[in-house]
């Protein structure tokens, strides 16, 4: 078996990013769209950690911490919006939220 190099991590992170992208673009349920965004952010983190490890530079890990902070803020506000949405429109399906569509 080949030893694990940085490119393995990059391919894995690209695959996870694409899975998350498909989830965001195709699912109707807003909760699962938010979860797919978490997948995308984790793919970014794998990439940052892989380069941080490869170049022995700690800055990648610091940036990953900030990405996690953003993910927390995004999840909290997104789920708050979701609760407000469910209270007002009684739906969690993304394509039924079409007030601004003519």
């Amino acid at each position, binding site marked *: *078996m080949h*030893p*694990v*190099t*940085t490119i*393995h*991590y*990059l*391919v894995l992170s690209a*695959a*996870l*990013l*694409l*899975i*998350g*992208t*498909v*989830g965001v*673009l*195709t*699912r*109707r*349920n807003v*909760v*699962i769209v938010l*979860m*797919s965004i*978490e*997948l995308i952010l*984790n793919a970014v*983190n794998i990439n940052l*950690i892989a380069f*941080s*490890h*490869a*170049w022995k530079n*700690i*800055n990648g*890990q*610091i940036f*990953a*911490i*900030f990405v*996690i*902070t953003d*993910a*927390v*803020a*995004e*999840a*909290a*506000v997104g*789920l*708050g*919006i*979701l*609760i407000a949405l469910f209270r007002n429109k009684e739906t*969690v*399906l993304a*394509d039924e939220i079409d007030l601004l569509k003519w």
Partner: protein
Amino acid sequence: MLIDTVLFYAFALLTLGGGLLCITRRNAVHSAISLIVSLLGVAGLYLMQQAEFLFAVQIVLYVGGIMVLFLFVIMLVNLDDAAKERQFNRQWMIALVATLAVAAEIGYFLYRGRDAFHIAVASTVGNVQQVADSLFSEYLLPFEIASVLLLVAVVGSVIMAKKRI
């Protein structure tokens, strides 16, 4: 070296399998559980790259914090009706084509740059110490700005979830 390779593929399988299950399950609770599996796989990958602090943060914050928040909201909003509906929207074909285009692009760049990557050697200084040194000296201002961002997020989510604004 062999154990590293085996562990990498095990964690990669957890990560990708959990991600795939997360975006295909009909029941949102099953999706959340699959996402937890995927996040644990990512935590294992952090540990394999000597990012011990981020490993702990990933488990405590993501698996223990964000996912509990997700499960809480799933229980709060009634998703039984949504589970009976069509799960994918009408543009799924276009979305898949667009994603495949991005995949081809990333794959091409990785293929062209494959010789630039090498096997990393472990550093000797403790990871948590390094992170703290950097975070509290060089990145002190972004750290404080991140705390303000979290404060805004707390206030914003409380306002959003209030009955009457």
